[in-house]
């Protein structure tokens, strides 16, 4: 390969006015976008801010938008990108920029704190352990693969375009809810929070989140839709509604 052109977003502080700057660097065999960004940082932009850690797709730190697509920079091979035009690298757009490619994702950490934590049923055996079938484990393991890169949050139009951060928790936290709700040991009930505080109704299942997930979690079909169904049967089932009226429970 050879000299490759890049357009990288530069911005100083959340209030600063950002813009693209052009860079050129030599791309060699096997390089990923993160390597190129680091090389540019070393050669011609010493103060270019980029967040990264494991460089193996396991920690979910180096999320960005590469040629407009939400990607982990460490798992995007240069050889898979077109070379006839500059490679554009910019921060995730659903969150405020701190500097350059680094954005402030602290909102996600606040959201998670509000979700009802795991609460197991009493142990099954006298020695304090549980018995769980492998197939029940596997159903939830898909959700537990999440590396919290927040690319699904970035691409979700409810957050990205409509900025409903106060009313909607985003795909990452529907996956988190699903992992808890379908956990074979959990006894919590998060359906009313999902409906009222977390805004699951706003999702109109366009599946953008599923498409960008680097862990290939089938977010929409396996997490969000089943949760929506549970919410519907809990709150809109006519028999349940009637039951609640007679039992004095609060109607939804």
């Amino acid at each position, binding site marked *: 390969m050879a000299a490759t052109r890049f357009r990288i977003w530069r911005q100083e502080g959340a209030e600063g006015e950002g813009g693209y700057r052009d860079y050129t660097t030599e791309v060699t065999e096997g390089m990923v976008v993160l390597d190129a960004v680091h090389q540019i940082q070393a050669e011609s932009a010493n103060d270019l801010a980029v967040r990264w850690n494991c460089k193996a797709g396991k920690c979910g730190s180096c999320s960005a938008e590469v040629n407009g697509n939400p990607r982990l920079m460490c798992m995007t*091979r240069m050889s898979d990108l077109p070379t006839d035009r500059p490679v554009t690298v910019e921060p995730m757009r659903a969150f405020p920029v701190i500097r350059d490619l680094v954005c402030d994702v602290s909102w996600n950490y606040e959201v998670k704190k509000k979700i009802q934590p795991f609460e197991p049923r009493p142990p099954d055996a006298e020695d304090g352990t549980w018995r769980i079938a*492998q197939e029940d484990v596997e159903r939830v393991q898909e959700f537990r693969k999440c590396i919290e890169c927040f690319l699904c949050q970035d691409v979700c139009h409810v957050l990205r375009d409509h900025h409903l951060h106060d009313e909607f928790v985003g795909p990452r936290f529907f996956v988190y809810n699903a992992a808890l709700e379908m956990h074979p040991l959990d006894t919590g009930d998060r359906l009313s929070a999902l409906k009222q505080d977390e805004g699951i109704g706003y999702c109109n299942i366009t599946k953008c989140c599923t498409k960008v997930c680097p862990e290939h979690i089938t977010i929409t079909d396996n997490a969000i839709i089943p949760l929506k169904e549970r919410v519907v049967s809990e709150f809109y089932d006519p028999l349940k509604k009637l039951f609640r009226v007679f039992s004095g429970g609060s109607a939804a």
Partner: protein
Amino acid sequence: MEQTPYEYDVLVIGAGGAGLRAAIEVSAAGASCGVICKSLLGKAHTVMAEGGMAAAIGNVDERDDWKVHVTDTLRGGQYLSNPKMAEIHAREAPARALELEAWGALFDRTKDGRILQRNFGGHRYPRLAHVGDRTGLEMIRTLQDHGIHHGIDFHMEYTVFRLLLDDGRVAGALAYDRERGRFRVYRAKAVVLATGGIGRAFKITSNSWEYTGDGHTLAYDAGADLIDMEFVQFHPTGMVWPPSVRGILVTEGVRGEGGILLNSDGERFLFDEIPALYKDQTADSAEEGWRYVVGDRDARRPPELLTRDHVARCIVNQIKSGKGSPHGGVYLDIAWIKEKISNSEDHIRKKLPSMYHQFKELAGLDITKERMEVGPTTHYVMGGVRVDAESQMSTVPGLYAAGECAAGLHGANRLGGNSLSDLLVFGQRAGAYAAAFAKEHGDVRLDQASADAGIREALQPLERERGEGPYQIQYELQDLMQEKVGIVRVESELEQAVEEIDRLSERAKAVSAPGNREYNPGWHTALDLHNLLVVSEAVARAGLLRRESRGAQFRDDYPQKEEHFGKVNIRVARGADKEMVVEEIPVEPMSDELTRLVEEMG
């Protein structure tokens, strides 16, 4: 430069498995707790751990118990471990694993629904609780999701660069914020170091940028002892191609599931190199090795599951003798199991999902069909802060260490899977004892003058307008450590390394990283240099003093084990004139019960 300090009973530095487990214990004890981490929460290096967590629960083979585990650990560590720590670890690991399950972790299961355990190098029985090949992620996420409901304050993307003392006792820390370059002063009655390792001192490593020996150096600078620094674990299987991914870990789980190592002639070379200590426990034939993989209790383990130090050295020998693969490694083959099982491709994808994706996406290679190319990569440091076995307190009052930055459990070589359990067992203990220490001992005084001096010193690279940049020194150090303090060592080269590190340290004192304080990676590297240089010097000097080959240290000029060195650890500490003092100290004595166990189990 007066700043309002953040105040806690216990300050935990690092938010990997050990730091999070310590913090949970601190807050459970009713003490206030702050956690400082260099990255975002949940991104620490624990997330990279793949294979599993060693705990003698005995679900797969009921012959396993803590007694077998402790003897495996001591043998793996070539009898240089602190025996008391090895015993505590083996006894308490099962409870720590089960507790994780009570907090929401979901391990793979046995047929009757209990936690499944897998084989790993140096463990006599299947012992590793695991979740496919992403056990570390499961563990860190479980601790994170549990910990955020415990009133712990998390200070993300802050780096600690100095510990503060009050009359010899630890009193707090100084940190800076990566994104904005602001300083913070912390006052605490006790401090737990949980900062991980030193891999970034080497050129080829599986470690991320965070692993710059921070905790080791913070402790050393504060006057604490380090031990066993000569023992750096080179994991036998890192990726070697393409160049940009060189060093990234390929889990031992591949070999646990039946993966075999081959040279360019297609020979399974490890069968020719079985060490005497493991002769009785190792398979005679490929056929017996496979029976072990599929759970035949009478079969012995294949030679690929010998300890990491040994396998790494054998790979180096193959490469040196011209039997390496095209990109300077050897072959690791899991695809071959198609000869043994019909649905091998699905099986591999299910058992090793992240390895499958890692090779598919980074190397364009399908491990269910093709052989991987692998070679040794700097992975783990057995050495670290010398701690009390029970409490994890260092030789500085109120300063604790747990996980990779502490030493004692692993001796000369760590067994795979003993790290995740180490984090939990000793993270929990460090947290409990640190909280108790904070309660028993009164308040500490924060020495404002020394805090101000620390901050001024940290600002110097920014203020020097002229001078060498930090990157060149870092690259030279990494090359030096890789070449002269690596897998095969010799006196003359170690001496050269010590001299060269001294010269690099002088250059580092005059380094310049001009620019502003907001996200200035050059400045961060300038501050990291001190840590990298201290741990590198410690590794080289300790390696020089240990004139023998044992565990992870292989000396070409002393290729055998020496009886004398089997009885000593190497202690590293700062002398009166700030020079590094290196000396032998006796290994902690073994209890009568343990001595008997070791004799019985061979």
